[in-house]
C-alpha cells in the first residue's frame, strides 16, 4: 500500500499488562508489540479496554501488573511525564483541547518540553526566551500548514467545529515530534469527507515523518485500509492479533463482533 515504507524492529513492547479498577478487570494479561514505522490498530467492541490500553501506554493509568518496554527502556510504572519525555504523544477520544486558548497556542503547548528559557528570561522577553519562542513558532507553523488550518490559527479552539478540533488535537500531538503517536478514535463522529481527510493526514504523518502510529478506530473500512497489523480486544482480553486479513478471518473475532451462533 505504501510502497517503499520499511517496517523496522519492535519499538514498543507491552508485556502481560493487567489493569483493574477495584473489582472490575479492564485489562487481563495483554501482550502485544508495535514495530517502528507501522500503523497498528486496536479494535474491539465497546468496553473492550481499548482506551484503557492507550491510557496505560501514555501513563494516565498505572497497571497493577506488567511491563512496558519502549526503545529498550523498561517502564514498570509509566507516568505521563516520563511517557512525554520518551516521545509518546496521544490524542483523545473526546477532544481534550485547551478551550480558552487559540489554535496556535494549543499547538505551541506541545513544544513545552523543548523550551528551556527560565522564568526571568520569559518575563522580560529576553534573548533566549524570544529566540526560542520564534524558532518553535516556525516549527508549529509547519504543522499548521501540514494540517491545512492556517485560516484558524488565531481562533480560540472552543469556537471551532468538531472536525477541526480533532485536527488541532492531532496538531498538538505532532508538535511534540513524537516517536510514537497514539490516536484514540481519531475519526469518531466524522462524516465521510472528514474521515477521508483524517485518513490522509494519518497516512502522511506515518509516511513523511516516519512516525509509528497506534490507533483505535470503530470504522472497520478505515482500519482494514490503513493499518498494517491489528490487535483485537474483547472484555479486556486479547482475542486476535495479525494482519487485517487474518484478523477478519479469525472466528473468535467474528464471534465477538457478530455474536455466537447457537
Amino acid at each position, binding site marked *: 500500500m505504501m510502497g517503499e515504507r520499511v517496517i523496522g524492529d519492535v519499538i514498543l513492547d507491552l508485556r502481560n499488562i493487567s489493569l483493574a479498577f477495584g473489582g472490575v478487570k479492564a485489562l487481563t494479561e495483554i501482550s502485544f508489540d508495535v514495530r517502528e514505522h507501522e500503523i497498528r490498530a486496536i479494535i474491539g467492541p465497546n468496553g473492550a479496554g481499548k482506551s484503557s490500553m492507550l491510557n496505560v501506554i501514555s501513563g494516565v493509568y498505572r497497571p497493577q501488573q506488567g511491563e512496558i518496554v519502549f526503545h529498550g527502556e523498561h517502564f514498570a510504572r509509566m507516568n505521563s511525564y516520563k511517557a512525554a519525555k520518551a516521545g509518546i504523544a*496521544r490524542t483523545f477520544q473526546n477532544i*481534550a483541547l*485547551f478551550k480558552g486558548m487559540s489554535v496556535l497556542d494549543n499547538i505551541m503547548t506541545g513544544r*513545552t518540553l523543548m523550551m528551556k528559557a527560565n*522564568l526571568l528570561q*520569559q518575563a*522580560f*522577553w529576553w534573548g533566549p526566551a524570544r529566540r526560542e*519562542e520564534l524558532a518553535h*513558532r516556525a516549527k508549529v507553523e509547519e504543522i499548521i500548514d501540514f494540517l491545512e488550518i492556517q485560516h484558524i490559527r488565531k481562533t480560540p479552539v472552543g469556537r471551532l467545529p468538531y472536525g477541526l478540533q480533532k485536527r488541532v488535537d492531532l496538531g498538538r500531538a505532532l508538535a511534540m515530534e513524537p516517536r510514537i503517536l497514539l490516536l484514540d478514535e481519531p475519526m469518531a463522529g466524522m462524516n465521510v469527507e472528514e474521515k477521508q481527510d483524517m485518513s490522509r493526514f494519518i497516512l502522511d504523518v506515518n509516511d513523511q515523518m516516519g512516525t509509528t502510529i497506534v490507533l483505535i478506530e470503530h470504522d472497520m473500512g478505515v482500519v482494514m485500509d490503513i493499518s498494517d497489523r491489528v490487535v483485537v480486544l474483547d472484555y479486556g482480553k486479547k482475542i486476535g492479533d495479525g494482519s487485517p486479513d487474518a484478523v477478519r478471518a479469525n472466528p473468535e473475532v467474528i464471534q465477538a463482533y457478530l455474536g455466537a451462533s447457537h
Partner: protein
Amino acid sequence: MIYRENGQFKTSYAADQQIFPIVQDRWAMLLLLVVAFVGVPLLSSEYLFRAIFIPFLILSLAAIGVNLLVGYCGQITLGAGAFMAVGAYAAYNFSIRIDGMPLLGALLLGGLSAAAMGIVFGAPSLRVRGLYLAMATLAAQFFWDWAFLRIKWFTNDAPSGSVSISHLQVMGWPIESPVEKYLFCLTLLAVFALAAKNLTRSSIGRQWMAIRDMDVAAEVIGIRPMFAKLSAFAVSSFYVGVAGALWGFVHLSSWEPAAFSVDRSFQLLFMVIIGGMGSIMGSFFGAAFIVVLPIFLNQMLPWLGELVGLSISTAAVSHAEFMIFGALIVFFLIVEPHGIARLWSTGKEKLRLWPFPH
C-alpha cells in the same frame, strides 16, 4: 473607520507575536503612557492622587497578581490579602532590621517572601481544587491575620500594633509628595504589567492555561502540574506581595494588620472577576471599577439629588453607594460573565467592521 488593520501585513513571526500587533493599538498605548506619566501629574490635585490614582495603581498591581493565579492558572484564592500583608511586613522588617536597605530592595524582598509563602500555602492545590482550595487559601488569610497581630517580633514590638515607615527614597530621589509617589508606583506598575504580559504569552503562561483548561491533557504533553501550579502561586504571590509592600510603604505609610483583612482578599477577587479572568488589561478595568466607582457615586449622588430638588444626607449617600455598587456588579456579571475585558474586545471587533457590520 479609523480602526482598520488593512494593509498592515506581517512578514515575520516576530512582528506577528508583538503584544499590540495593530498599529493603532500601539499609538493608543503610547498616548496612554504619555497621559499617565506627563498629563496626570500636571493636571491632578493632591486629593485625586491620594484618593484615586495611587490606590488604583497599587490595587491594579495586586489584581494582576491574583489574575495570574485565578484567571490564567485556574486556581482560586481567598488569601490574596494575607500575601499583601506578608509582602508589607516582610518589606518592613527588611528595611528596619538591615541598615541601608534600599526601598526597591525591601519591596522586592517583601515580594519574594510572599512568593515563598505562596508556594507553601499553594501546596494544597496539588491535591484539592475549587471550593476546597478556596478554604485552604482562606486558612492562609486567618493565619497571617493572627500572626501579624499577635507575634510582636513582626511589628518590631510596637506597643500599638501599628508600624510606620517614613523618608522613602530611591537612589537619592525622595518619594514624599503625592506626585512622586504616583510616579514611583506608575513606573513599577508599568514594568510589572509588561512582565506579566510577557509571561502569559510565553511557555510558562501556556502551561498555566493548559492546567486551567484540561489538566489531564496538559500532563500528557509533558507539563508537570506541580511546577505549573506552584510557579503560578509563587509569581502571583510575588506580585501581590510587592503590591502589599507598596500599599503599606507608599499609600498608608503607617498601618496595622486590619489593612490586609479578608475584605481585601475578596475585593481583589472581585476585581479579577469583574475585570475579566485571564486578561492583564481586565485587571486594570477591575481595579478601576472597584476603586473609582464608589468615589464617583459618592460625589455624584448629592449632585444628582440637587438636580431633582432633593437633598440627600451623608448617611443616605453611603447607603445608596453600596446598593448601586452591588447592583452594578450583578448587572455586569449578567451582561458579560467574562468581565469588562471581554466587553472591550467585543467592542474592538465591532469597531474594526464599523460602519459596515458584515
